């Protein structure tokens, strides 16, 4: 008997091939669009996150509790190098680097400006940050000389200096004492990030510690590595912090709340658009199913009179919608996968993207994400919405009485 239901449903669908095809086409259109947009969005987010984190922040950082909110110089990590070594051993990850940060007045021969100074470990810094690779002039800190500095391109321009010139640095140390030194500039980097190019200098951590009276402390231990492995790395790092109450492990969401929220805001507004689209497709399905039920009133009357129950008729209609919705979903996913696959290989770009890319520090070619989480949610939402829409015709059908229905033409 189930077979008759399915067979009837199948034949009913093709009573009006054009209507059926149009309904499926609407679903496929929505599915492909959703897959494409979602894939593009996720690809863009991944790129934004990866690029923003790779420049300087890293995947996670160990800091003294409270330093992230109020970065005072005295909030330091004691015996930071030993701790970094411990984390390296426990996570089996080389990309762990110790840093110190300070603020100072930086003077060239002609200019004086305030700037952020970071003390970095020349050996490990290139493994957590892409900044060492973004040197445009000169070279990065090579770890051989103690007293040298690299500087952001805008800052270098404002100070009117070139590699080889000397800078006088004047600030206050961890204990409030005067911190002063004279350092040759060996390199200029251009990260594309306005603030970093305008505000930041890097010097070897050992020199930084001497100048700013840091002892063996540091302000953060930056942990890099791949984001896919973040959970395992975090477990390892957390174990190293087990007996250190004053230290915290911060993930990138905490370190860069703006990035996280920008993504959330963008995601929310995008789903508003998607919802409107899905609702429209669901209305189309509602209309199709309602039509196909209404035009069969007479036929349903006969079936009811023959003793076929409302339940069975209902199952038949649900089967019809399910076949339609599933066909739409499968074709949609297939075409959608081909479309995003094409752009995954060839990259996607639109006018104005270069300027946006510069602002948000992303490359000007987008590669959409092709994964279950980009391929499935859109088509599934369309499927559910259309199935939901076909409930109304069933409710309508249940009200039919055989005698009345038979009189309908």
């Amino acid at each position: 008997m189930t077979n008759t239901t399915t067979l009837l449903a199948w034949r009913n669908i093709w009573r009006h091939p054009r209507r059926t095809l149009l309904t499926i086409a609407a679903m496929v259109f929505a599915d492909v669009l959703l897959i494409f947009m979602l894939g593009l969005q996720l690809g863009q987010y991944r790129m934004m996150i990866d690029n923003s984190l790779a420049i300087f922040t890293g995947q996670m950082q160990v800091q003294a509790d409270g330093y992230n909110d109020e970065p005072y110089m005295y909030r330091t990590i004691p015996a930071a190098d030993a701790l970094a070594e411990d984390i390296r051993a426990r996570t089996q990850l080389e990309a762990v680097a110790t840093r110190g940060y300070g603020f100072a007045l930086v003077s060239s021969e002609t200019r004086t400006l305030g700037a952020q100074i970071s003390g970095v470990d020349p050996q490990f810094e290139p493994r957590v940050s892409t900044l060492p690779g973004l040197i445009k002039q000169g070279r990065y800190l090579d770890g051989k000389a103690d007293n040298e500095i690299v500087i952001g391109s805008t800052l270098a321009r404002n100070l009117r200096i070139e590699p080889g010139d000397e800078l006088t640095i004047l600030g206050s140390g961890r204990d409030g004492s005067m911190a002063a030194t004279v350092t040759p500039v060996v390199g200029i980097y251009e990260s594309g990030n306005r603030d970093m190019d305008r505000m930041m200098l890097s010097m070897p951590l050992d020199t930084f510690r001497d100048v700013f009276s840091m002892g063996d402390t540091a302000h953060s231990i930056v942990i890099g590595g791949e984001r896919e492995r973040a959970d395992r790395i975090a477990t390892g790092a957390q174990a190293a912090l087990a007996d250190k109450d004053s230290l915290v492990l911060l993930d990138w969401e905490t370190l860069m709340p703006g990035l996280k929220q920008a993504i959330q805001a963008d995601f929310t507004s995008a789903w508003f658009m998607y919802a409107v689209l899905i609702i429209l497709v669901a209305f189309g399905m509602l209309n199709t199913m309602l039509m196909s039920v209404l035009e069969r009133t007479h036929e349903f009357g006969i079936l009811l009179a023959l003793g076929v129950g409302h339940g069975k008729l209902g199952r038949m209609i649900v089967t019809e919608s399910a076949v339609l919705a599933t066909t739409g979903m499968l074709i949609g996913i297939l075409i959608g996968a081909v479309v995003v696959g094409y752009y995954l290989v060839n990259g996607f770009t639109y006018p104005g993207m270069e300027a946006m890319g510069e602002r948000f520090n992303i490359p000007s070619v987008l590669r959409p994400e092709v994964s279950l989480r980009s391929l499935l949610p859109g088509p599934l939402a369309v499927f559910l919405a259309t199935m939901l829409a076909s409930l109304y015709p069933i409710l309508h059908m249940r009200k039919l009485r055989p005698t009345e229905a038979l009189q309908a033409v």
Partner: protein
Amino acid sequence: MKTPTFMLITIAWRNLWRNHRRSLIMLTAIAIGLWGMIWMTALMRGMVDQMIDSAINTLSGHVQIHAEGFLDDPSIERTLPPVRDNPALQSLLDSARVTHWSERIRVPAVIRSERDVLGVTLVGIDPQQESGLSFIADSVTEGEYLAGVDDRHVLVGRKLLERLETKSGRRIVLMSQDPDNNIAERGFRIGGVFDTDLQVTETSYVFAGIETVRAMLKMGDGVSEISLLGPDYRNLDALAADVRAAAGKADTKTWLELDPYMATMLGVMDGVILIWFSIIFVALSFGLVNTLLMAVFERTREIGLLQALGMPPANILIMVLVESLIMLLIGLLAGNLLSWLTILPIQDGIDISGVAAGLEWAGMSSTLLPAVKSSDVLLANAIVLVLGIAASLFPAWRASRKVPVEAITRIWQ
């Protein structure tokens, strides 16, 4: 006697309500589609307006004049002569074409409290002229706004105050570089605290009277920038050209030239809106075509009858198109009404402070004001109406093509 046109409209109207459920579903779909178009554009436009507003408000103004090279290298050496030395510029700025203008000195500086040292931009302003031009005059929430060009207090942002762990009324020290490359250093009392939507504004700027800053930096009567507002942030080219001519050897730029990102953003926005409209329309048109096809199909017999009675095929085509037109018009009416009703309660802005840090990242504040532009609403309506009629041509053409005899004898299918 009824005219044929009137008759066609009557038939179309009655046809529309023969299957009221189907028509209502389609009407709802059109209304929701239009609502989605108008709403989304209102929010997007609102966001961009706000970004522009805050960009202009945060010291940029509509047009800025700087000494040549200042934008690349904002140093105290690059100054302009004051406006009063340039009668042509003075009369242009005082004319009705410019609503507000002011001179400023802008230098990188270092601010020091007992607890911390931070880098800021010190802005010397003329408090009277500045009011109405930028945010500062209306944003002082604690203490007093500057009284005059030689007021000896400074205004500090709320967030900066917290970072420096100091209070209104306390002293801070500002350091910068004078034109002779010496460090100029001077203590100030904090006279007022300002609050803005964007934290970065609060931490970036410290304001003082322009004469006070000149005295601190031991400089003459030069200015770093002249900022002015015209009547509207669009169509500034003519004004900018005249200012450029009057200012002579200086760097005159409109806010769009100063912020190329914002300019591309505006261009991208129009494209995005058009794409969004088209997507919604395509989703809508599937339903529309389907509904009309069904309506025509189930009337095969009576259309055949009409033709047999002598109705020309063109009239049948028009009849179906009129039916579609009526449906589109009612749907659009409902959609516009729905948009109006849903935007009305949020006219004063939606609080989206839940994602404030993210919006700050994009240079926006945490209240979103929807901006309904009549051009967008018209475009949305026009797209649905014109393309809707175009999409109905196919079902209408199919209806008119039917051969009478075949159509009448055909009972079902």
